[in-house]
């Protein structure tokens, strides 16, 4: 057993335990934190699969941005304890059934996969030729697969652009050593913008729709705002509540973006 094997078991166990923690914690904040733990364990698994870029992005986007907002809201609303779902017989049976079916599907799916052993492996040359981003090679550095020459290196010569950009990589296996030598981001980016460009663009369109929807929901319509202003002007102004002020500096001016208002823009 190598170091990587041991780490895979540790990270996998942590991922399962923290995933269980998400559904079984009685306090919502512990559920959210378990989810953070789960995401970080998954990032470790990605790392062990040589997907360093994916691991870093997983931590930045999910653990660092999305879950911070969840924890933020939970801590602000401070909801009370919840009953553990384990007490609910029906939830337990339903959950177990779903887990069983998922595991079965997963096993079936992996059994059906045949690893394409006979296909050519992606060498430096094939990657460089196939991914349009690697148009430059550094002369005199044949062993290295660094696609981009150092800055100001006069030996850098552009080679002809690969005429068959996407098709060249179809069915080619990426081996971790090659990917590492080329650069994780470069390979991922190259694949995203060639082989997987359609799913990639559709996903971004989906996110755009979600963003527009969120803006629409939070924005007041001008008509409603005018009506509210008219109603407010008819009402006499409220007297300032005595002794309610939080003290100088603590409560920001009404124009200041409240801390809870930030998540939308983030």
């Amino acid at each position: 057993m190598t170091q990587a094997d041991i780490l895979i078991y540790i990270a996998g166990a942590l991922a399962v335990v923290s995933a269980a923690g998400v559904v079984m914690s009685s306090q919502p904040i512990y559920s959210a934190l378990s989810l953070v733990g789960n995401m970080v364990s998954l990032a470790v698994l990605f790392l062990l699969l040589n997907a360093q870029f994916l691991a870093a992005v997983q931590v930045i986007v999910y653990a660092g941005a999305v879950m911070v907002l969840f924890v933020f809201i939970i801590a602000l609303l401070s909801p009370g304890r919840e009953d553990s779902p384990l007490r609910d017989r029906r939830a337990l049976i339903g959950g177990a059934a779903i887990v069983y079916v998922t595991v079965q599907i997963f096993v079936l799916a992996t059994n059906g996969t045949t690893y394409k052993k006979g296909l050519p492996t992606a060498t430096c040359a094939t990657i460089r030729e196939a991914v349009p981003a690697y148009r430059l090679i550094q002369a005199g550095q044949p062993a290295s697969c660094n696609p981009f020459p150092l800055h100001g290196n006069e030996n850098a010569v552009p080679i002809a652009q690969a005429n068959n950009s996407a098709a060249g990589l179809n069915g080619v296996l990426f081996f971790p050593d090659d990917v590492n030598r080329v650069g994780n981001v470069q390979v991922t980016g190259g694949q995203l913008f060639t082989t997987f460009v359609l799913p990639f663009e559709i996903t971004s369109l989906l996110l755009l729709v979600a963003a527009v929807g969120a803006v629409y929901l939070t924005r007041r319509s001008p008509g409603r705002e005018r009506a509210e202003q008219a109603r407010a002007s008819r009402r006499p102004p409220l007297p300032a509540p005595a002794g309610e002020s939080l003290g100088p500096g603590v409560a920001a001016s009404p124009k200041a973006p409240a801390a809870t208002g930030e998540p939308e823009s983030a």
Partner: protein
Amino acid sequence: MIADLAHFSIGPDYWWVVLIKGVIVLGFLATAAAYLTLAERKVSAHIQLRIGPNRVGPFGLLQPAADAVKLLFKENTAPAGRDKLLFWLAPALMAGAAILAYAVIPLSGTTNVNGYALHWNMAHVNVALLYVLAITALGVYAIFLGGWAANNKYSLLGALRSSAQLISYEMAVAFALIGVVILAHSLDLEEIVNAQQHAWFIVMQPLAGLLYFVGALAETNRLPFDLPEAETELIAGYHTEYSSMRFGFYFLGEYVNMVTVCSLATALFLGGWLPLIPWIHSDWLGGLVGVMWFLGKASILLFLMMWIRWTLPRLRYDRLMNLGWKVLLPLGLLNIVITGSVVAARAAS
């Protein structure tokens, strides 16, 4: 050539080499944090026409040791209504995240030691820049959970301010860094430094450098942006209820974060270990000289941070948010557009 060497040894390193490097980095960071507190007090004293600590040891040089002993032996108080687990976990997370981030920062160029490629960082990661951003993003939890778990309204307010501030400025910092990545064609910090052989990126990316430094001040909760712990209104914010070594961990985390941020700025904008006075080096001695150059540049930035802290007043909270979202973020986007267009135009011609 050093740059050629950098490519053949990505992958598993000897575990004992990594262990030795880890011990050295940990020791270095702990010492640096301790002496930064002394430096901070000395600098503040000189700015305010005082002398500063001078009783323990020559020129007060043993003051950090005295402070450490004091922190260790103080009573470890804890508020009654706290969340026990999180109150204990948060300071450890703060120090841990701060130290982890330093693992990928290359203090010098890869050196050839009898055919073995010696990297001057703990882990030679392909996406080092993203790794640092990811680990710093986790640091938000330490501050937020610490403030929340203490069950104190000042702590909670400090924690809320801090989280909002960190999330806002993280965006600006990330946008500022993209310009550098476009120019260097890499997220590998070592390659980014090597790309500055001819001109430091502060020359080509002055706007990004400025944005990064301002964002870094906010991310480390340093003074124009130290709203989360504003002592006059929040009595130290998120760590009000922490005492003894738990407070020490927050303190350590904060100063280690300063070192990390300044080291990252050195690697990204000030040419890292590249010397001002050219001296070709490829053996381990040359590597050590590179470390000296790196730490020298980082120290200048650290001094700048202290200088700013003791001369500028604190921003108001709404102004802080306005600066982050309405000034830094658009400027960062502008920088990306300009850099991208110039690079694309030059590639096309």
